[in-house]
């Protein structure tokens, strides 16, 4: 926040559309950048964790289970702060942006993996027998037979979790990522106009969630097959 910004805001104090909104939209771009990377990576992590838990040998399965147990147990904000403040202690330095992405991937991936795990376990054992009887290896079976059916079943849960992620991405403001919520809070503390600023932010979050659920609905319909 430099002098000129403050000055500009001062002289355009009543200009919500001219000043606050562009700033908030600027924050929104940052939020989108965080989400566009976190969402796909978190789902990939979720699938990996679920497959490792179910099909991995004892140590691998235990490792995956502990990972999920840990990061479902920690508050997201604590995980975030630990990544940002504690990792440098062991020589790993991440920018606020990448710290946030890493935290969201880990946390959301852990949550999503439970849906994927449940879905995999709900696939009838006969599907596996049939795949094996054709001579498929375990990996071929997982990729071609189990996951296509399981992911379809996990989709409603996973999309719900991703919609949560859209909203708790606002926690990134705690470590100085200039996303919507950070920008809104900043401008509110400067101008104390909570109603229009926070309402604008809330509407943007809601808009993102609506878009996300629309996209998931489309995927759900496209991947449907008669049962």
């Amino acid at each position: 926040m430099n002098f000129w910004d403050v000055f500009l805001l001062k002289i355009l104090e009543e200009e919500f559309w001219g000043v606050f909104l562009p700033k908030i939209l600027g924050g929104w771009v940052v939020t989108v950048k965080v989400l566009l990377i976190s969402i796909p990576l978190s789902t990939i992590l979720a699938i990996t964790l679920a497959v490792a838990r179910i099909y991995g040998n004892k140590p691998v399965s235990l490792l995956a289970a502990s990972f999920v147990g840990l990061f479902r147990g920690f508050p997201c904000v604590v995980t975030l702060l630990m990544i940002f403040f504690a990792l440098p202690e062991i020589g790993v330095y991440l920018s606020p942006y990448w710290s946030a992405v890493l935290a969201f991937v880990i946390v959301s991936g852990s949550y999503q993996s439970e849906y994927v795990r449940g879905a995999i376990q709900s696939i009838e054992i006969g599907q596996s027998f049939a795949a094996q009887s054709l001579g498929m290896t375990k990996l071929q079976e997982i990729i071609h037979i189990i996951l296509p059916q399981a992911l379809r079943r996990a989709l409603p849960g996973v999309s719900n979790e991703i919609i949560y992620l859209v909203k708790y991405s606002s926690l990134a403001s705690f470590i100085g990522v200039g996303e919507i919520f950070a920008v809104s809070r900043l401008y509110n503390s400067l101008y104390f106009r909570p109603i229009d600023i926070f309402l604008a932010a809330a509407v943007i979050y809601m808009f993102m969630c609506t878009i996300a659920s629309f996209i998931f609905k489309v995927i759900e319909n496209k991947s449907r097959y008669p049962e």
Partner: protein
Amino acid sequence: MSNQDITLKVEDLHKSYGSNKVLKGVSFEIRKGEIKIICGPSGTGKSTLLRCLNLLTPPDRGHVWLEGEEITDAGTDIHKVRQKIGFVFQEFNLFKHLTALRNVSIGLEVVKGIKKDEAREIALEQLRKVGLEEHAHKYPGELSGGQKQRVAIARALAMNPVIMFYDEPTSALDPQLIGEVLDVMKKLAKEKITSLVVTHEIGFARSVGDEIMFMTDGRIIERGPPDEVILNPKHEVTRNFFRNITRLYERSEQ
């Protein structure tokens, strides 16, 4: 030991689940082109036997040779073995997310590495064989039980196995759908496709079976030509079993 004509040879096969001994020394062999029928009350190890033979369940003891090669050997590539054995399940187990055509072609593509177009051709050919070419694009959810089982047979046949296993292929079907499945199986029997069939369809057993093996309590207690075993069984258990089955069969025929 390895006679070229013998497709499958089983020697003294044992399997237990915990303290429950399911197979207590099963031995038999199937020559090329033979159709062997396994009958017996439920819970006597028939399904377990088939599963042990294609190594879906590892047997505890005993030996199995497929085309002269011992598959119960420690170094056996079980995926290779299973490719050579067509398995038809009681519950069909079609891949629910794939069309009938893809159900048949996926093994060819994924396991045998056959190109998509070619696999499609083979799959269509197999579906034609079981009379389902016009249903190729349908999902299992859109097919009747009898159609599902025919797709399952086509799926197994497409892999060009040296032997077919059928595990009570008509037991999960409504009575009016059994016929279409048996017709397909009879057609295949006429083509001399070596088969091991667990079934209670004594009509089928008598018309195409070369031998019936009657299993009870984890052992084969009686075997012989179908007519002989069904009409003139030596053991009390066998006699009771077939008497009940025949009674049921006649009732459903009426």
